[in-house]
């Protein structure tokens, strides 16, 4: 015979078990709801993304076509006007070129076609040329964005580093583009490059609007822009940072962000030196694959 106490104990334990499984069920349910929400978000962001991209491609083209038509029909005496229009065409085309580069790079990464192409690269020159291409844009926004181009002593001379120059160029372009975009008027941007513990470091620092702490985690998300309204003053579709992150991944690099709302952001990338592949597509570790049908396992 079971005593009443034993029965009560048993009942208590069973109740506890039931509660536990209910908890687990609740938890899983919550996860389901979260995933569902994510899917719904992705869907709406996707359509938003397409309308954004349409705007960003169609509008600049319309301006370029209109402006160039004006130039064609302008009188030779209107040189000043022509120059202004040429400048506008340049900045529209510059923006377009940059956006398309990001879009095509994203497409290549998503198709699994992005391969690191490690070449001996002169870092000083590479960073310098990226800064140069943005000088006009910085001026154009009348932000008085000043580049204090602080390169380390070591980098003042020619410094060679084995890395993928095209990927590095796009990463730095994105960081610089963002810092110009989110800078306040009459502020400055600092760009610094140095080598530390065999890592190439590039820092881009702005004194702009900054990023909220709780938003720091989502800035690499595709389609994500913190200010996602269509009427936002800042153009772009939030692809830049997710492309940069994926490119850094492919060359084993990392990115570090320190940011404070209304104070500014510091983005620092660290990239290890790659091994230059003499022949495209060979073993990373330098050892040749030696396969021998007698020795190796065959599947």
């Amino acid at each position, binding site marked *: 015979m079971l005593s009443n106490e034993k029965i009560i104990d048993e009942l208590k334990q069973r109740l506890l078990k039931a509660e536990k499984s209910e908890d687990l069920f609740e938890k899983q349910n919550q996860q389901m709801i979260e995933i569902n929400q994510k899917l719904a978000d992705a869907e709406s962001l996707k359509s938003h993304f397409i309308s954004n991209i349409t705007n960003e491609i169609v509008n600049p083209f319309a301006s370029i076509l209109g402006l160039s038509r004006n130039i064609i029909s302008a009188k030779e005496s209107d040189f000043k006007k022509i120059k202004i229009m040429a400048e506008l065409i340049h900045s529209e085309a510059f923006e377009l070129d940059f956006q398309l580069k990001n879009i095509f790079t994203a497409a290549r*990464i998503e198709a699994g076609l*992005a391969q690191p192409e490690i070449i001996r690269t002169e870092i000083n020159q590479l960073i310098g040329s990226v800064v140069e291409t943005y000088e006009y844009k910085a001026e154009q926004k009348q932000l008085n964005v000043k580049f204090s181009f602080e390169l380390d002593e070591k980098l003042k001379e020619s410094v060679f580093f084995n890395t993928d120059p095209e990927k590095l160029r796009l990463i730095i372009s994105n960081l610089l583009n963002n810092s110009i975009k989110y800078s306040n008027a009459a502020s400055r941007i600092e760009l610094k490059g140095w080598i530390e513990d065999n890592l190439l470091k590039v820092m881009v620092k702005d004194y702009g609007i900054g990023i909220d702490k709780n938003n720091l985690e989502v800035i690499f998300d595709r389609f994500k822009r913190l200010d996602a309204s269509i009427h936002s003053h800042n153009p772009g579709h939030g692809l830049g940072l*997710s492309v940069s*992150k994926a490119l850094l991944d492919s060359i084993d690099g990392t990115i570090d962000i320190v940011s404070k709302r209304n104070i500014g952001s510091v983005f620092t990338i660290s990239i290890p030196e790659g091994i230059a592949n003499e022949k495209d597509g060979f073993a990373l*570790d330098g050892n040749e694959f030696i396969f021998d049908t007698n020795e190796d396992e*065959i599947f």
Partner: protein
Amino acid sequence: MKSFSLSEDIKTHYLYPSALFADKEPYLVDTILGSCVAVCLYDPVLKVGGINHYMLPLWNGNGLASPKYGNIAIEKLIEHMLSFGSKKENIQAKIFGGGEVVETATNMFRIGERNIETAEKLLREFKIKISGRSVGGKKGRKIRFNTFTGVVLMKYIEKQSE
């Protein structure tokens, strides 16, 4: 006698992590695997093949939807095979990698194991037969996949950086 005399003049390709390779032309595709998993798909009727090399099991919606993630990498690879004209029922799969090569805190996440699970689960869902495998364990692997014959040569390696 080597099992594939074609290897003398066949093109080679080194497959990086997060990348994917599929071509109608015959290729020898080399890759190095630690906790990453590579799925080799081969169609013995058309004699074409493709291979991926993914690092993490599932895309969680963050960042780009690249073949760094198993679910994306496997789906994309199957799409490639179908675009070559392969019939799903003819496609064979071989899976490699997923070793727990790093004895650190990452073991907690059982990345290798979860990568293997993803391959098995998705291939089952797509009803693609797994005709060969060498997965798990503590060692890294080097593999060479012949996309023309479907043969995969494999070597264990001690040190693994991925």
